Every structure is written in C-alpha cells, then in structure tokens.
C-alpha cells in the first residue's frame, strides 16, 4: 500500500518530539478521522533553525510530518509557508489516495506554528 520512501520515513522518523523553548507551536486535528498533529519550531532571524513534531495518526501522517519538518528546517518563515502537502507528497513519491488528507495535517500545523510565532513577535 505504501511505497518504500514512505515506509522508510515512517520507520525512522526524523524530528520527533517537542522543542523545549519553542518560538511557535501549531496543533491541528483532522476531524475526518480524529487525528492530531503538533509541530513546534525554533526561529532565529526569521529562519527556522529547528522543528519537531508529535502525531497521533497513521503511517502516512508520521511520514509526512517527518518529511515536512525536515523540509522547513533552514528555511525562512516565508519559504516555509510555501511548503504545501503536494510538495511533501511529491517528495515522498506519492501516497495512497485515501491518505492524502493526512498530509494536509503537516501543512496546517506548520502554518499554525508560524502564525503563533508571528503573533508572539
């Protein structure tokens, strides 16, 4: 059902956890099936220097959060806002159609975390 890249990201997820003194936090839930995702970011001079995630969800949710957090580390917040679920899926080489909605979680959590960071500035 999942391709190797997705399985690999699920098996060895990167950036798991919560940053202690985070600058922004985004928690989103997917009403469709009750999944929850949380992303915390550390920002220096508008550049994301660290990002971590926690997720209650399926393998696709874990794989996309790992990939998405990995992608945004090193990006400016404006660049990070351009990271869509499509790009994450593309990077992972595709997801089963019933799993597309899981990838939206990561995108939304990142946006929320950035909003949170901006609102605190």
């Amino acid at each position: 059902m999942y391709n190797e890249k997705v399985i690999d990201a699920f098996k060895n997820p990167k950036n798991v956890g919560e940053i202690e003194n985070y600058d922004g936090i985004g928690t989103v839930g997917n009403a469709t099936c009750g999944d929850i995702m949380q992303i915390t970011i550390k920002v220096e001079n508008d550049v994301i220097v660290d990002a971590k995630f926690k997720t209650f969800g399926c393998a696709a949710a874990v794989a996309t959060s790992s990939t998405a957090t990995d992608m945004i580390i090193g990006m400016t917040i404006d660049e990070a806002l351009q990271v869509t679920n499509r790009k994450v899926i593309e990077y992972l080489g595709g997801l089963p159609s019933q799993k597309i909605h899981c990838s939206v979680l990561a995108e939304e959590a990142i946006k929320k975390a950035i909003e949170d960071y901006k609102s605190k500035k």
Partner: protein
Amino acid sequence: MKPIYLDHAATTPLDKRVLEKMLPYFTENYGNANSQHSFGQTAKVAVDNARKTIADIIGAKPSEIYFTSGGTESDNWALRGTAKRYKDKGKHLIISKIEHHAMLTTAKELEKEGFEFSYIGVDEYGSINLDELEKAIRPDTIFIGCMYANNEVGTIQPIEKIVEIAKKHNIVCFTDAVQAMGAIEINVSKLGVDMMSFSAHKFGGPKGVGALYIRNGLDLGKIITGGHQERTRRGGTTNVAGVVGFSEALRLSRESLDKDNEYIKGLRDRFIERVESEIPYVKLNGSRENRLSNNADFSFYFIEGESILMMLDLEGIAVSSGSACSSDSLDPSHVLLAMGIPAEYAHGSIRFTFGKDNTLEEVEYTVDKLKEIIHKLREMSPLFKLNSEVKNV
C-alpha cells in the same frame, strides 16, 4: 525469523491435508457436477459426499445445506431472500449493530428499497441486548438476525435465547456463524435456527466457498438465478474442489476441536496476561470469559492503530486494526463504537487472532516487539505528554 501470522479471524492458511483432497478435482476429476456423463457423476458424488459430511457435523440434513461463494453471499441470501419472499407479510427486519458488513451494507440497500430495519445495541462486552431485541419486534417483523460470534472482539452471542425469542413470535431467525464455525461445536437442529451462514476459509478451508443452511420447509427468495444447481435455489456451476475442501477442513477442525481450542486459548491467555502486566494503558475489548478462544482485541491508549499495525508488520507480525485510519471509510470500528468505546480508543485498537500453527515463542516475541512499538509510538504522540506521569510507568 519467519513471519508471524496473528490474523486468523481474517483468514486461515489452507490445511495441507485439505489441499491434497482438493487437487484431483482440478485436473483429473474436473467434470461439471451437473453433467450426466461419468466425469460429471464423479464430481457429483464428491459434492454429495461433501454435503453429507458437513450436514452430519452440524446436525443438519444434507438437503438443508446450500453451497455458495462464501459468507458474504450467504448473508446476502438470508437477508435479501427473506425480504423478497416475505415482503407481503411485513417490511420490518431486525439485526444487531455489530453484524458483519455483509449484513449491514445489505440492510442499507434494502432500506432504499423500502424495508425498515431495527439495529439492536450491545453491552460493553459486545453482547446483544435481549430486552431491546424483544421490544423491537413488531407485528410486521419478518426477520431476526444476529451473528453467532463477533469477528472483531470474539464475543459469543446468547444465540439460543435469540432463537427462543424469534420462535415465540414466529419470526424467521438467522445467524451468521462464519467466525464461530471452526471454533465452536455447532448443532443447527438443536439450536432450532432457520438459517445459518458459513465460510470455509475461516477454518483451514479454501476461499471462495461457503454455505447457507436453510431449514427444510423454509421458503426463501432467490438472489442468484441460473441453472438447476442446489435444488434450483442457487444457480452457478458448483465449485467442486472448493466444497470438497470445505468439508474436509470442517471435518479436520472438528476432529481436533477441543485439543486445538485448548492450545490456542493457552497462547491467547499468555498473550493477554503479558500485555496487561507489561504494557500500561491498555484495555482488553470484549468479554473476558465469553469470547472465542483465538481472539484478543486490545485498545492501546494515546496511539493510533494503523501505525501499530504497520510497525508490527515491519517486524514481520501480521494483525488487524479497528482504527479509522486503516479503514477506507475513515470510520473507526462500528463494533467498538457500539460497545460504547470512545472513538479515540477505538482508533488505537488492534486485533490479534491466534491459530493452531502459532507457537509460544511467537507469542513471546510478539509481546516483546509490541512493547517497544507501543513505547516508540507513545513517545511520538501529542496525547501522551498531556499525561506526564504516564511516562514513568
């Protein structure tokens, strides 16, 4: 380590002795059981013998066994056939909330055609509410259906009582025994049920073959029309090798039923004991005593079932989950929800079903891996940290 299969409620491996019996009916005795020549007659004898073997084992007459393509067709036939035949008597049917989708989806279809259904709830252990059942009966009720044992949590239903209620009110009574057949000694005539469905692949037989028991004298509408097969009640060339495999698998499973059940229950109980004592925040779903001997269904709090299933699979362990994420519909298990289990715990549910080929070593290995996986996923869960003292358990 070779893969560990703990999903025997989904399907079982074909018993090699069953395969032996089936093989000649593919290549040598390939006749159509409906043909008059000797090829056909050889096949017919095999089908007749299979029918007799099955009938004898379950306490039925051979003329009461109708071969089908499996459990789903049998369930469909019982439900649709009754609706079709008795619609002038009434358009109300009763089934439980925890039926297999073969029943529930068919009920939804029949509702579109103007039939009315009452769906009877279950208690926290997954046992049907008999009072509610009796209260749901109306003068126009034509059907009562409840599974013999549940496929997800393994709860064995008070089927004798259900039959009693149906008889008292003179209503056609059906039970889906697909999950129960290989594990419980079933006698249809003692039970007095009107119809019962079976599927061969749940007890070491081949896929794609099953049966519907129809009590002699019960009139039932047809859903598959065709030739004269199955006393003209179900058309379609008989799956000769399949029914031969079906009868042999049933015979073998009956022969060693007590021994197998005891062994499987031993493995299952060891598994439950270790999971409950070594993994915090778990709940055994279903009844502790009144359940199929092969079934252990657990909810693991704070984490999601598909992830558990996938991680176990990566370790070579095959299980199934009632999580919304592992169903295409994105709804968690209707059985667990009917039992009043909160959706987030239903999301974290995993069903382990053991078989006679499993070993104690496999059970121990599975628990060892499961512990690691549950820990790893909880570390990843945003719900888990909310409960910080949980971490130290």
